[in-house]
């Protein structure tokens, strides 16, 4: 991603950005499920204090948006 810092051309910037992002997504996608679970657990740890402040009710499954 470092090379993004040196690109001045907008089109080249977004092309490189998209390419790098897709590379990163592919790397994460290929992780073993156990490793993905660890990553999600870390996200949940960060989220829990926020959730304690605002507790909303979850929509039941099958409750589609208005477009049906």
């Amino acid at each position, binding site marked *: 991603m470092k090379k993004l810092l040196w690109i001045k051309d907008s089109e080249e910037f977004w092309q490189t950005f998209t390419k790098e992002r897709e590379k990163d997504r592919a790397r*994460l*996608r290929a992780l073993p*499920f156990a490793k993905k*679970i660890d990553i*999600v657990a870390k996200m949940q740890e960060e989220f829990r204090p926020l959730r304690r402040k605002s507790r909303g009710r979850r929509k039941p499954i*099958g409750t589609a948006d208005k477009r049906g």
Partner: protein
Amino acid sequence: MIETLKALNRIKRMGLVKDYAIAGGYAVNYYLEPRFTYDLDLFIVLSYEEDFHQLYKFFRDAGNKIENVYIWIEGTPVQFFPTYISPLFAEAVEKARRIRVRGVTAKVLSVEYLVATLLLAFRSKDRAVIPDLLGLSNQNLIRDIVKRFSDEKTPLDQRLGRVLADLH
């Protein structure tokens, strides 16, 4: 989460549930890059409909925290969806993939059934991941599932059509 799966395998051995499969956000994470999910959604096969009450009673008696629709099992909020509420869920568990996570066996919805269940829920977060999952799936199989489980109230075929139209 691994401890949660171990606990679920214990209740399966006890006969409280006949079978189960991971659905929802964790199933999406199995196939795609990890993204935040709050709870563990599970489709569960029960011998009798009344067993759903027994399951809640079992966890309540065992001292598990029950909050809103969630039962906290080994630190994870779990939401159970009994398969008797939907023939799609029942078939999804039957056809689920067997996996092993850190030595613990479990089942996760196949990508095709996962897409079908996301088309059923069809919230914005579900719609956001369907295109990536479609890229990993057998689209003929999805079309077959969607065709069989579409009805007026949940037009899965129309929803799939809309997602595919947005891709082009």
